[in-house]
């Protein structure tokens, strides 16, 4: 599904990713953990194509195609989704309208027919029901006045309706209390499927109680420094990142 080879990237003059390699098979969920400043968010922005993140070496191959030459909206059309650490507010635009614009854009890209208003409403309601989200959220402006938990649930809803093949979840647990964490975790787990891969970026192990990963990687100083199964996350929770910081330095 996704193959990252020797990826180097910089922001401004600072090199953040320093030769990162990673391979994710279809249907797998990988977790990336690491200390602050290791390059976790940079990785998510490089994969989704944000301006200002310059790839200086290496490659990312997604479904056999060169991901890095695609515009962000093309990546979305191809099935790449990023759940933002800090979802952005868009005043005056209802969540419903935003979702419809997004879904119809990717459907158009994928050569599928666009939804009309009625069909879309039906489609969204099926998804909100599965994810146990109150339809009232759809009427509110995108992320405006949302609590931390509501924002993250809205991200999961967007992921559900856009039906991606590869989703990056960037610190989805930040700003969530225990109950919200469980709800979001269960929502993401409900979206696991054999043809969908996920990359879960997190600082803490607790999210991985709800989204159980196939593989866990430790990112330190712009490189993957350790890889293991879900038990690696539990070890990290106990021992912290201190050993890796030394190894990287």
């Amino acid at each position, binding site marked *: 599904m996704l193959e990252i080879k020797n990826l180097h990237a910089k922001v401004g003059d600072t090199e953040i990713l320093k030769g990162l390699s990673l391979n994710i098979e279809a249907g797998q969920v990988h977790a990336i953990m690491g200390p602050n400043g290791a390059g976790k968010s940079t990785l998510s922005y490089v994969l989704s*194509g944000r301006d200002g993140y310059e790839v200086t070496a290496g490659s990312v191959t997604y479904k056999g195609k060169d991901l890095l030459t695609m515009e962000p909206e093309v990546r979305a059309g191809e099935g790449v989704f990023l759940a933002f650490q800090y979802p952005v507010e*868009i005043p005056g635009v209802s969540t419903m309208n*935003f979702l419809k614009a997004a879904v119809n854009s990717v459907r158009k890209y994928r050569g599928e027919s666009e939804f009309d208003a009625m069909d879309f409403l039906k489609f969204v309601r099926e998804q909100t029901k599965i994810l146990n989200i109150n339809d009232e959220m759809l009427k509110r402006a995108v992320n405006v006045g949302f609590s931390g938990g509501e924002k993250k649930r809205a991200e999961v809803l967007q992921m559900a309706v856009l039906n991606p093949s590869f989703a990056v979840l960037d610190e989805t647990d930040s700003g969530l209390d225990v109950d919200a964490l469980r709800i979001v975790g269960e929502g993401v787990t409900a979206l696991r499927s054999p043809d969908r891969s996920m990359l879960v970026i997190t600082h803490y192990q607790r999210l991985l109680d709800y989204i159980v990963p196939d593989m866990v990687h430790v990112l330190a100083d712009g490189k993957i420094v350790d890889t293991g199964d879900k038990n690696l996350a539990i070890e990290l929770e106990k021992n912290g990142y201190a050993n890796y910081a030394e190894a990287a330095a």
Partner: protein
Amino acid sequence: MNAAVSDTVDQVQSVEKYKYGFVTDIEADQAPKGLNEDIIRFISAKKEEPEWLLEWRLKAYAHWLTMEEPHWPKVTYPPIDYQDSYYYSAPKSPDEGPESLDDVDPELLATYEKLGIPLYEQEVLAGVKNVAVDAVFDSVSVATTFKDALAKEGVIFCPISEAVKEHPELVKQYLGSVVPYSDNYFATLNSAVFTDGSFVYIPKGVNCPMELSTYFRINASNTGQFERTLIIADEGSHVSYLEGCTAPMRDENQLHAAVVELVVLDDADIKYSTVQNWYPGDENGVGGIYNFVTKRAACRGKNSKVSWTQVETGSAITWKYPSCILQGDNSVGEFYSVAITNNYQQADTGTKMIHLGKNTSSRIIAKGISAGKSQSTYRGLVKMMPKAEGARNHTQCDSLLIGKECGAHTVPYIESRNKSAKVEHEATTSKIGDDQLFYCRQRGISEEEAVALIVNGFCREVMQELPMEFAVEAQKLVGISLEGSVG
């Protein structure tokens, strides 16, 4: 000789001049270039106007000669040569139009397409030869039904030149009663040379059965560059009037100076919605319409109400301040505005709310969006007069900037001469954030679509005031106006 006699002599002499001047040939389709009394007599004769109206035009012209073009708006343009324009030309004959849509500017057609305008309406808008205007309304019967329904309620809706003939008492009573002929440079010019426009009268207690739209009589009368509109809502009546069209209008006349007068009596209300999409000039700022408009409503009666809604996306220069004179006790004035400027466009627009009566209230929501190298100014006046006991106003001005080379300015004037009056003003300035654009694009929405979405969200409070049939097209228009503003 006393003054009255000398006036009469002057008039007789000028009539003589008219009689033997070049303009005696009223079969001519066009008056020569330039502006003088003869041209005004020619226009008046063409329209077969009564003497009082000709006199009114001449008075306006004489006054105009004593005035100077105003330069206080924050707009710049080369001097206008008023003698280098035509002030009267007959509507083009349908035979001069293009043979079919194949002969029409493809850029224009692309815009029609984006707005979702049906094919037969595109033909009418582009002036294609021999297209029946009735086709716009699907069939002759729809147009007829429309006329019948209005007639049944006693509503008068016709070109103002026709109203001068058919309802002279109404026109004489109200024309110039809100915007006097001496009001301002451009309104005075309009009073002297106006060619046509709309006239509406809603009788007492009548709720106008449909939205009145100039769209209904597109091409039916070529209103030209000096349009004059007069709407009277008699006691207890209600009407919604739509002006303009979302489709781009091409016009060879650079200067447009329209006047709109609204008169609202006791317990009546008028909702006046405008979508203005005149040619804005090209991306280098060449060409484009100068749109210098005077719009004013007199809320004369108690509990009367006027609501102005405007979406201004066109014209090289826009200079307009739709205003309300809140004379009747408890009368209400509203102004909802979206002004979008891109490339080298300039807009200086806003409103005036003059509170005279007790417990009058007004609400202003102005949204300015500037992109490219454009300049957008909100200029507004809220004035509480000594007798405006308990009057109140709330003003909200929001500016949105796209890019680094545009400007947004807010110039609110507030004058209060009554201690019990309340005036509130809020203003914000923001930019479309890179993070907002990226968020949309990550969800598959293209950059241009994202701008349209974000800007429509910013304008939502104003857009929702538009009548349904306008709102959808107006939303698309927002996107089209800002094409090429990012990236």
